[in-house]
C-alpha cells in the first residue's frame, strides 16, 4: 500500500495536582519540599483502621474545572478503589473515580473533553542505587508527603491530529487551569503531568487504529518530540506491513528512544469496586453556584475578546491571553493610554520588546516598568517624539530602573532630532562622502547606506530612518 497517507489520532490524559490547603482525604497540609514524611497522618499513611473523608475544597476546584471545560456535572458521582500493590500506595489501592466521574462531555477549544475526575496522588519513591529505577535499586525509600495530594484527571477525546496541536492544546489547558487558580500547573515539578494516547489510521477512515500510551512527559517540548517519535515509529511499522501492539511506552528524552513499560497482556486488573468508606459527591445548587461564581474570564474567551475589541492578530491575542499576567499588564496599558492610544502598537511592544526584556515567565508587574510608562512610551513613538531605536533603549531603562519615559528622553537628550538639525547633519554627511554621492547618481542605490549610517551615528539614533532617507534623496536628486 505505497500510496496510503496516515493520519495521527491523539488524545491526552492530564493529571493536575490541586492547590487545596489540605490533602484529598485527610487534614494534612500539602507539601512543598518539606522534610520527607513530615506531612503525614494515620489516614494518608494508610494505617489500620483509618478512613478517608473527602476534601470539600477539592470538590469545589473539581467543579470549577468541570464547568470551565464545559462539562456536564454528575448529580451524584462516586469513588472507586483501584487495587494494586506498590510501595508508594499505602492502602494497596488508590481512591479514584471510575464509571461515574465528577464531570464529563465537555470541550476546550477544538478538543472535546471525555471526563474529569477526582483522585489521590501516590507517595514519592526514591530508589537508592545506580540506575534510579526500582529493578536494580539497592533499596527504595518512600516519602509520603505527596501521598494523598488531590489530583484531577482530565481525559480528552482523541481529537488532536499532530504533535504540535497536542502541545498547543495543552498550553491552552494549562493557561485555563492557571487562570482558575486551582493548581500551580508546573510540569517540571509534576503538578501538571501528561500522558498521550497515539494511534494512526489511513486518512479518511473513521475506525481508530491500535493505540499506544506515552507516559509522563514533563515538558511541552518532550510531549511534542515524544508524540512525533511515536507517530514516526508507528508509521514505519505500518508501512512495513506490521501491526501496532497495544502497550505503554516510555519516551527517553536524552536518547529519543521509546521503550515498552508493559504490554496489554501485562496490564493490571485493577479490580475496581465502589469505595464503601465514602459517600457519593452530590453537588448542591449552592455548591454549583459557588463554583460558577469563582470562574474568571478564561484564556480562550479572553483571546477572542482581545482579537475582537483591539483587532489583534489571533496568534498575538492568544500569546497575551494564555499568560494572564501579561494580558493583565497589556490591558492596563491600553487603559492608561486612554482614548487616543494605539492598542495594536501596545500589543506589538508588549509581546515583542517588553517580553524579550523579561526573564522567562516573569510577570511584567514584577519588573520596574508600569503600564502608565509603557503607554506613554508607545504614545511618544506614535507622535514621532522618539525614534524606534531610542524607544527600545528607553524601554530597557524602564524595565530595569523604572521612571518616566519623557523624563528619561529629555535628561539624556534623546529627543527625536528635528528637521532643521537633521538638514545640517545630512548636508555635512553628503559633503564628507562625495564618492557615495557619485555612486548613487550613477545608479548604485546601495551606496545610500553609507550616508545613512553616518547620519544615524551622528544623531545617536535620535533620527527617524525614513526622514533621513527622504532628506538625502531630496538633496541628491535636487
Amino acid at each position, binding site marked *: 500500500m505505497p500510496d496510503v497517507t496516515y493520519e495521527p489520532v491523539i488524545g491526552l490524559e492530564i493529571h493536575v495536582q490541586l492547590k487545596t490547603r489540605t490533602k484529598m482525604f485527610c487534614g494534612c497540609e500539602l507539601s512543598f519540599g518539606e522534610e520527607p514524611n513530615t506531612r503525614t497522618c494515620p489516614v494518608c*499513611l494508610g494505617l489500620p483502621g483509618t478512613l478517608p473523608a473527602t476534601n470539600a475544597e477539592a470538590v469545589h476546584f473539581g467543579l470549577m474545572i468541570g464547568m470551565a471545560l464545559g462539562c456536564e456535572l454528575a448529580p451524584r458521582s462516586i469513588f472507586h478503589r483501584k487495587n494494586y500493590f506498590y510501595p508508594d500506595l499505602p492502602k494497596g489501592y488508590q481512591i479514584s473515580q471510575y464509571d461515574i466521574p465528577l464531570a464529563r462531555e465537555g470541550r476546550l477549544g477544538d478538543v472535546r473533553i471525555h471526563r474529569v475526575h477526582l483522585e489521590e496522588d501516590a507517595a514519592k519513591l526514591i530508589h537508592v542505587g545506580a540506575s534510579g529505577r526500582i529493578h536494580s535499586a539497592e533499596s527504595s525509600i518512600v516519602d509520603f508527603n505527596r501521598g494523598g495530594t488531590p489530583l484531577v484527571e482530565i481525559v480528552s477525546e482523541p481529537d488532536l491530529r499532530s504533535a504540535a496541536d497536542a502541545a498547543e492544546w495543552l498550553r491552552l489547558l494549562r493557561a485555563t487551569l492557571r487562570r482558575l487558580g486551582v493548581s500551580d500547573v508546573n510540569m517540571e515539578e509534576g503538578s501538571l503531568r501528561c500522558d498521550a494516547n497515539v494511534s494512526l489510521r489511513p486518512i479518511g477512515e473513521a475506525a481508530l487504529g491500535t493505540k499506544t500510551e506515552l507516559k509522563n512527559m514533563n515538558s511541552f517540548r518532550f510531549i511534542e518530540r515524544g508524540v512525533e517519535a511515536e507517530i514516526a515509529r508507528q508509521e514505519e511499522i505500518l508501512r512495513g506491513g506490521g501491526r501496532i501492539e497495544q502497550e505503554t511506552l516510555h519516551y527517553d528524552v536524552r536518547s529519543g528512544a521509546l521503550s515498552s513499560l508493559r504490554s496489554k497482556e501485562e496490564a493490571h*486488573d485493577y*479490580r475496581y469496586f465502589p469505595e464503601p468508606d465514602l459517600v457519593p459527591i452530590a453537588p448542591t445548587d449552592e455548591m454549583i453556584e459557588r463554583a460558577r461564581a469563582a470562574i474568571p474570564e478564561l484564556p480562550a474567551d479572553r483571546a477572542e475578546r482581545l482579537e475582537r475589541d483591539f483587532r489583534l492578530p489571533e496568534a498575538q491575542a492568544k500569546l497575551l491571553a494564555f499568560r494572564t499576567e501579561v494580558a493583565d499588564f497589556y490591558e492596563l496599558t491600553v487603559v492608561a493610554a486612554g482614548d487616543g492610544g494605539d492598542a495594536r502598537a501596545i500589543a506589538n511592544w508588549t509581546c515583542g520588546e517588553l517580553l524579550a526584556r523579561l526573564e522567562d515567565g516573569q510577570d511584567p508587574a514584577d519588573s520596574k516598568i508600569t503600564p502608565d510608562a509603557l503607554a506613554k512610551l508607545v504614545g511618544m513613538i506614535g507622535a514621532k517624539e522618539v525614534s524606534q531605536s531610542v524607544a527600545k533603549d528607553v524601554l530597557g531603562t524602564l524595565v530595569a530602573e523604572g521612571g518616566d519615559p519623557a523624563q528619561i528622553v529629555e535628561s539624556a537628550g534623546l529627543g527625536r532630532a528635528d528637521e532643521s538639525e537633521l538638514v545640517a547633519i545630512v548636508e555635512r554627511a553628503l559633503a564628507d562622502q562625495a564618492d557615495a554621492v557619485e555612486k548613487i547618481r550613477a545608479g548604485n542605490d546601495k551606496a545610500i547606506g553609507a550616508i545613512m549610517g553616518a547620519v544615524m551615528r551622528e544623531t545617536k539614533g535620535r533620527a527617524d530612518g525614513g526622514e533621513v532617507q527622504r532628506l538625502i534623496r531630496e538633496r541628491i536628486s535636487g
Partner: protein
Amino acid sequence: MSGILDLAAAQAAEKVRAGELSAAELWEAYRERAAADELNAFLWLAEEAPQVPADAPLGGVPLAVKDLFCTEGVPSAAASKIIEGYKPPYTATAVERLTSAGAPMIGKTNMDEFAMGSSNENSAFGPVKNPWDQSRVPGGSSGGSAAAVAAGLAPWAIGTDTGGSIRQPAALCGIVGLKPTYGSISRYGMIAFASSLDQAGPLTRDVTDAALLLRHMVGRDEYDSTSTGHPDEVALPSAERLDGLRFGVPPELTGDGLEPGVREVFEATLRRIEELGGTVEEVGLPHSGHAISAYYVIAPAEASANLARFDGVRYGHRAQNGDLRSLYEQTREEGFGPEVKRRIMLGTYALSSGYYDAYYGRAQRVRTTIAEDFRSAFDLVDFIITPTSPTVAFGLGERIDDPLAMYLSDVLTVPMSLAGVPAISIPGGLSEGLPVGIQIAGPAFSENRILDAAHALERTIGFDGGRARA
C-alpha cells in the same frame, strides 16, 4: 468481694456515682479476675488503674475492648500475626468516646483474625474457650469479648459485627449482644474487614448495660463519612410488657436448620411474647435464603482490598526476602492465617475483570432485595424474631476443617447485616446446659424500641448467667 462481681455494669456505675462503691476497688476486682483468665479471652491487660472522674457517666466501670479496635500505644493486632505487637498512634473513635465517658479499658480481647470466623478458632493467638463448657467454642468473631463478659472477667465489652460477630458469640456465651444500625457508631479506628457491613456494638450481661454502652458509642464522626449518628438519644429500657407489639417470624430462617433444643427455647420465647401482650405472626423474608451466598461475595471482596495494606512495607511483619514481589508474597504468606487467605482469594476472584458482574454485581443486587424484604416486613410487624444461631456452642475443632459448615453458623444473623438494620441477641434459655440466643431485629434506628422489647422479655425469661461466672 464477690458482691462487686455480681453487679451488672450499669448498677456498678450507679453505685460508684453515688459514692457507694470505689471505682478503684471495682477495677482491682476485675483486674484480678482477668489476670487469672483461663479462657484465653484476653490478648493484653492494662497494668495501671486509670483515673476516672467520680461523676463520669460510666462510673469507671472497666471495659474489655476487642483487639480489632486501634488503641493508642497499646497492641492492636486484630488477632493477626501480620501486625503482632503493632501499637497504633491513635485510638478508635468508639473507644475514645467510651473512655471519655468513664469506662476505662481493662484489656484487649481475643477474636478471629481480622474478624473472620464464627468460633474464635481463627485467632493467631489460640482459640478462646466457652466459659459454659471449655471444650466448646465461644462463637466469633468477638469470642474473647463474649467469653470475658460471660465469665465475669470484665463487666462489659465492645465488639464488632460484620455478619453476626457480636450476636452469635453473645448467644453462644449466654449474654446480650447488640449490632446497631449501620452508621450509628463511627468505624474510625476499627481495623476494617468489610467496610459496608462492619459495625461496633456492646456485649453485656443484660439489656440495660447494652443500652448504657450504646448511648455513649453512637454519634456522627467527621473521621467516618459513612457515620450518621443516631436520631434519638439512646434511652435506658424500662418496658415490662409487649402490648400491641407485633413480632414476625420469618419461615425462611426458622425452618429445618434449627437444632431441636434451639427450636424449643425459641418457641418458648414466642409464647412469652404472647403472655406479655405481644402478637406473633409469620412474615416472609423471601430472599434471605441467598444472604449467606451474597455475604460471602461482598465481605471477602471488600476484605481483599482492606487487607491489601498489610504488605510489610510500613508496619507489622515483613518477610526477609529479595525483591518487591517476593517481599509482598512472603510477608502475606507468613503473616495471614488460612481463613484470611481464603477470603482474600475469594474476594479477589469475585472482583476480577470478567467476573465482577456475575459475582460482586449480582451479590449487591441480592443485598438490595434483602434490604427491601426487611422494609416490606417492617410495614407489617414491629420486629423480626429468630434464634441467633441455629445451634448451641459447638465443640472446639468441630467445624474448623469445614468452612461451609462454619459459614452457616451465621445464617440467621447475616441477613440483618446485609440490610444494615439493628438486631440484638439476648439469652433465651438453656439447651442441654448451653445458652440459646434469641435475636430481635427492627427497622433502621429502632434501637430504643428493640432495647425496650428485649428488656421486657429478659425480665420474664429470668436467665441466670451466674454459672459461667463461677
